[in-house]
């Protein structure tokens, strides 16, 4: 069910990006879609665990390891049993950066277009035919 709510968020963003006529609104719709996908990816990697052993972040501290300076390091069973998936988190970190970059570019195109046309309304920004 949380996945479906995430998908609802995605569809709200898609609706906004397709239907709205204000340039900034369109950008906002795209941002909402990006949030939805990021949230979805992180949810995929989440481990609920039990109430005694809830899932933990994939960050190791000294209590999670066996062995040390001389013998090879090993993780404790508990860590292996409860750690959430680090891979989607890495992907989302990359995706957030990408979305920030495209946000900056999109906003600069909006500002420049505003300077040329004096409006954010895409129905009035129509020099190109069809």
């Amino acid at each position, binding site marked *: 069910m949380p996945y479906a709510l995430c998908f609802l968020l*995605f569809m709200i963003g*898609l609706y906004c*990006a397709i239907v709205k006529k204000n*340039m900034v609104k*369109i950008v906002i719709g*795209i941002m909402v*879609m*990006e949030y939805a*996908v990021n949230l*979805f*990816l992180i949810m*995929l990697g989440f481990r609920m665990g039990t109430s005694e052993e809830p899932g933990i972040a994939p960050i190791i501290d000294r209590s999670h390891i066996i062995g040390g300076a001389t013998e090879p390091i090993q993780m404790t069973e508990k860590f292996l049993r409860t750690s959430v998936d680090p*891979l*989607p988190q890495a*992907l989302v970190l*990359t*995706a957030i950066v*990408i979305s920030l*970059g*495209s946000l900056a*570019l*999109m906003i600069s*195109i*909006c500002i*420049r*277009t505003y300077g*040329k*046309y004096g409006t954010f309304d895409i129905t009035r*920004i*129509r*020099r*190109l035919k*069809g």
Partner: protein
Amino acid sequence: MTGVLPLFVAIPLAAAFLLPAFGKKGKAAATVLANLVTVSLLVLAVLCIGKSGVYLVGKWSIPLGINLVLDGLSSLMLLTISVVSAAAMLFSVRYMEQYTAKSKYLSLFLLMVAGMNGVVLSGDIFNLFVFLEIASIASYALVGFGCEHEELEASFKYMVLGSIASIFVLFGVALVYGNTGSLNMAYISKAIQASPMNTGLGFALALFIVGFGLKAALVPFHAWLPDAHPSAPAPISAMLSGILIKTLGIYALARVVFNIFGVSTQIGWLLVSLGILSMVAGAFLAIGQWDIKRLMAYSSISQIGYVVLGIGLGGLIIAKAGDNLGAKQLAWASLAILGGLFHLVNHAVYKSLLFLTSGSVEMATGTREMREMGGLAQVMPITRTTCTVASASIAGVPPFSGFWSKLILVIAAVQAQFYWVAAVIVFVSLCTLIMYLKVQRYVFLGELPQNLQQTKENRGSMLVAMVFLACLCVLMGLLVLVPSLKASILDPAVEVLTGGLEYSTRLIK
């Protein structure tokens, strides 16, 4: 040999990171450096022909790290990308003098090339997404490079639809990860073969088809292309129409559909119908245009249709035969895919040449409106000759390259008993002939208007780039006529697609 694979990405990226630091004074040096980069990529791509292999980035074994895969299809795409980008870069040396911020332009250009090379080489589906974003974001900025009304509007439109496409692809990647637990293409493919296709993967496939279809501008998703491609500076139009839509759209779609999910009858029919729709709609819309670059942009949609049609037809034949795939069906499918891929290469060369000539005309006359031109054959002989070669080629006049790829497609369709498909191919080819006769008639023949009497032929690097591509246009037919060239360049690429899911067994021992 696989040791050079990261260089395809590392060289242009490193150069692009350095170029903006050159500033105004080092403009000449920056131009030389950028040209050196594209030429060296061309040399590397030629070296990679016929090779195959896997490169493990950071020495991590396959499911852990990211791997670069070189196979027939990748090396074909690499070759196409480097030929077109070298020519377009050479063209921009002089053409881009009319704009400011040239070093930033060069940097964006190289980033786009790096992105495309990364997409083609990647063996990891998230990595493919990241490089797809580099290439797309660079192209959004390049479309709006002129910062005039139309350019900004086209750029915004392109950016919105392109971003939606990218998010669809990312969502597809997330769904695939959620269902298979892997990001490596070979492992995903293995997991999909092991378990029956479920709804989640089907939804992911739909997202991929819409996303890559938007990037490739197939017909229901083509709204951005006729605005974006004409608005960009001419060398960028050449890059976008010539290779960007093919790499980000067709290549990625073919890789995902054929090598990861495996082609089914429905997908085959879907690709064939998308292809035919694009061919017919693109051709009809193109004939009515009076803006020379807009006409060429619509014709790109039509030509992309041929490529998708060829690939889809091959997939359809394979999927229909199913388990009892005989040698005969395989030969038909190979022929159809060969036609599609050969048309992809051909179109990359002649469409970029056409856009370069249109840029040359635009720079000389200052307009893109065909009704205001005429008689340019007298004053711009070289542009005229190259444009005629490219037009003849795209219209399928023998012995130029376009003729051979269309012929192969027709033969494949007839052999596989899709007679109506063959008829559509011939019909659209006639429409293409008409639209380029229109270009010839209104731009180069007729009377020279008064205000264009002073027009002079462009000089220097622009001519070199155009003549280079025109020579290729004439010679490309050899790629299928000379057996050794065909066996080393096109056949391995066809085998990658007809082999389908063998992709994963080749990578995972």
